[in-house]
């Protein structure tokens, strides 16, 4: 972990979808730490600094996968191979990656596939891993081929049915659960989706971990910006990943969040 930005060069950019790009860069694991799936980085583009999940953990190389939704992310999309960014971290309590010989289901909605890709890739070797990659439409589906290549059972799922399962990730999960069961689940996506998934998995008694997002400033656990009701946990330290028993104590989950001023919305 490093708490001041380390300047790295973008070594590769993958246009994953019309709105999502993956950026790769070198990261000396020995000097800077070896991140675990589910952890995130603070990315500084010299105008602003925001949190991004780690989407790939290779040998001394990391990737982030960014959806262009506003000023900062569109600036990231303007980067080219060779461009510099500042990176600090990795931060947060990531996914439990200690599984072996288990049936794992990982569910990612939209760019929520970023951390899901990291954990699914990590566990694929020693576990039977299935991934629901959900998006609104075919063009926005993430990581189908790369996950298939490493032996993951990939279940694409689109809201509009343009590819794979037609419907929401929740529907797709219910569908899968008719014929199968899983030992453990990993989930990241819009909170409303995670809420639905959470209820289904709870009902099926499948334990799991959920990766949350809140507005972040320090990512060091001091500024309090990312604290959630009603236990006060910091998404940047106690999170972003929480087990299902903890999700129940995050009373604001899928209800509200706070903006940069701390005003709820």
């Amino acid at each position, binding site marked *: 972990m490093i708490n001041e*930005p380390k300047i790295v060069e973008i070594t590769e950019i993958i246009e994953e979808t019309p709105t999502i790009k993956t950026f790769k860069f070198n990261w000396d694991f020995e000097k800077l730490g070896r991140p675990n799936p589910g952890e995130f980085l603070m990315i500084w583009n010299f105008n602003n600094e925001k949190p991004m999940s780690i989407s790939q953990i290779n040998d001394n190389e990391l990737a982030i996968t960014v959806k262009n939704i506003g000023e900062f992310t569109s600036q990231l999309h303007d980067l080219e191979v060779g461009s510099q960014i500042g990176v600090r971290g990795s931060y947060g309590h990531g996914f439990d990656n200690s599984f072996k010989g288990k049936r794992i289901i990982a569910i990612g909605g939209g760019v929520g596939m970023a951390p899901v890709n990291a954990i699914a890739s990590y566990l694929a070797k020693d576990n039977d891993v299935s991934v629901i990659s959900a998006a609104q439409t075919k063009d926005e589906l993430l990581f189908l081929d790369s996950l298939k290549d490493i032996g993951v059972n990939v279940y694409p799922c689109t809201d509009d049915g343009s590819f794979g399962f037609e419907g929401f990730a929740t529907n797709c999960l219910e569908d899968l659960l008719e014929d199968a069961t899983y030992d453990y689940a990993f989930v990241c996506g819009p909170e409303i989706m995670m809420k639905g998934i959470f209820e289904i998995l709870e009902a099926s008694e499948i334990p799991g971990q959920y990766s949350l997002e809140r507005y972040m400033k320090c990512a060091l656990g001091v500024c309090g910006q990312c604290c959630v009701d009603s236990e006060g946990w910091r998404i940047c330290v106690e999170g972003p990943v929480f087990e299902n028993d903890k999700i129940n104590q995050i009373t604001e989950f899928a209800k509200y969040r706070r903006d940069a001023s701390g005003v709820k919305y």
Partner: protein
Amino acid sequence: MLKTNICGVEFQNPLMLAAGIMGSNASSMNWILKSGAGGVVSKSFSLNPHPGYVNPTTVAVEGGIINAIGLSNPGVENFKEELKKIEREDNVVIASIYGATPDEFSKLVEEVQEYVDMIELNISCPHAMDGYGASIGQSCDLSHTIVSASADASDVPIIAKLTPNVTDITEIAKTCEDAGADCLSLINTLGPGMKINIDVAKPVLSNKFGGMSGRAIKPIAVRNVYSVYEAVDIPLIGVGGIYTFEDVVEFIFAGARAVQIGTAIMDEGVDVFAKINEGLEKFMAEKGYNSIDEMVGIAHD
């Protein structure tokens, strides 16, 4: 044994959360209280919501961090809702407020005093917008005006939080005392400081400068407490780089009746409060101190 009393307000122990660290909502402050703090100081808030500076707002430096969060807060109306939800029984709840004019301060005092045990005036943030924070606390005149207005408006004890970034802190301390402050807390962040990233030749913080906190500022905080203790008669709260019970003892011996803990939470987690209380109690037992009271200021003898 760990009890301490400041301006008639009873603390279960001398440790409280420092302003601006994790104190952004009732949930996090309740967590800190459950973790062993005798009191909490809220994030500093103002009349209106304020988003603070653009990121990066914090960066690590040797011995601590520098920050220019920029006093982001959801405004007094929203913050009152948080204050109401804090567990006040047996705990001391302190609101930290900031503004630019005497009017803003007295309005804030009136708005929040029924929900808190004390009010701390942030006249010391070193990276605040012009007219706010240290712009006040670096001037005797402005400090006097703001502290007077707040003290006049308040039924609860008023703490003036001082900046170390002045030529002579005892002068400001005496001015605040004269103006009616019931207590002083010191120090707010030091410097400010700057971190330049040499690969891109740019200051890391978007605000360029940021106040320094953490272990490295302790010697300077202790000296300020020591000096101010000799200059005023009102009680002092020490803050700056406290990580261990040994640090707390240093501040108490220098003249503090209680302390605030901030950046240590980054390195040690919220467990730092319980750990320090335990160590402090053991230390007192070993050395034969029966109360915090006995220990206050004895490095002056």
